[in-house]
């Protein structure tokens, strides 16, 4: 036991309380981002919150050993997107097994008018039809109010790539929404 504690000291690992405090700060700044990324795939509040929670739980487990903690947001976005896609596919398989022909659940906002909800539903359907690389760029750009530099940081790709993918995505969406 003494050898273990001396190893900890030598490895200069930060105190657990400092890590918890740092993680709490990350949770506060990134919780909405993680939720919106999950919502961008699942379009269901409860499912999106479940997936975002799972992503944060995974993030916490890896937080201590994470080498570059300033890339936390980027890591979180990728893991949340992956978990959301997996949940979407498993929901789809479950629905197929239950032999219920339903489209992906979209919870219309009760406060919005019927026309607005219909427009949103059509938009989501069009976004779903995009290839994954274009879809994630579209969703993140929407979340980050089209700050392309931020989207490039989150996806760890060049800003030029974000621009070109977004351009392609918009062209396709316009065609689908015509």
């Amino acid at each position: 036991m003494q050898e273990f504690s001396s190893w900890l000291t030598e490895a200069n690992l930060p105190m657990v309380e400092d890590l918890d405090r740092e993680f709490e700060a990350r949770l506060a700044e990134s919780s909405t981002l993680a939720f919106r990324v999950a919502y961008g795939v699942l379009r269901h509040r409860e499912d999106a919150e479940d997936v975002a929670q799972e992503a944060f739980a995974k993030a916490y487990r890896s937080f201590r050993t994470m080498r570059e903690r300033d890339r936390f947001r980027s890591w979180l976005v990728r893991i949340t997107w992956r978990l959301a896609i997996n949940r979407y596919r498993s929901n789809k398989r479950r629905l197929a097994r239950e032999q219920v022909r339903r489209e992906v659940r979209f919870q219309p906002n009760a406060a919005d008018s019927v026309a607005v909800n219909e427009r949103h539903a059509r938009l989501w359907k069009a976004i779903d039809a995009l290839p994954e690389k274009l879809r994630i760029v579209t969703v993140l750009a929407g979340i980050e109010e089209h700050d392309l530099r931020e989207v490039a940081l989150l996806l760890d790709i060049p800003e030029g790539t974000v621009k070109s993918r977004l351009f392609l995505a918009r062209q396709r969406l316009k065609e689908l929404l015509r």
Partner: protein
Amino acid sequence: MNDDQLKHDIEEVLSIDPSPEFAARVRTRIAANKQCSRTSASRVRWSLAGATLTAAAVMLVAVVSEPAETVMPYPVSIAGAEPKVEEELPATPVPQPIRKAPKVSEPEVLINPRDAAAFRKFVEGIQEHRIDVSQLIELQRRATESLTIEDIALMPLDALEPIVIEPLPSVRRIEGGSL
């Protein structure tokens, strides 16, 4: 539909916030995961300890059940195998004493004889299958099941009262003169 309208619509559909309890639920989940991992880590430690004890017992059984080695007595020096004597030696050779090593049948016992006897009985019990070693692990496991290891709560530095160091009295007052 132009680009601005599309951008606006996409931002609108994504401008949804998580419920107010979301962050609290994340914290609860993380705390629950921490508790599970602590409990399973302590169980793993105790299981390892039990496994080590069992392995030690099995090794002892293996050692004790090996046939005792007979120690050869030291070779006896034979008269006449000595190197040839020079002419200076006396005419009549002095017979060399024959040295015999003490007979050693068992290793030297360094523990209390009563403890040694008790341990021998334990080992015989295992060999004769009167004692089931696997049950020892089960007993160990049951005994440690209800163990909860709590975190040491470190006192925050803010709670500690600062140490007040009084200034030294001036040297002049003590010695009654200048330095």
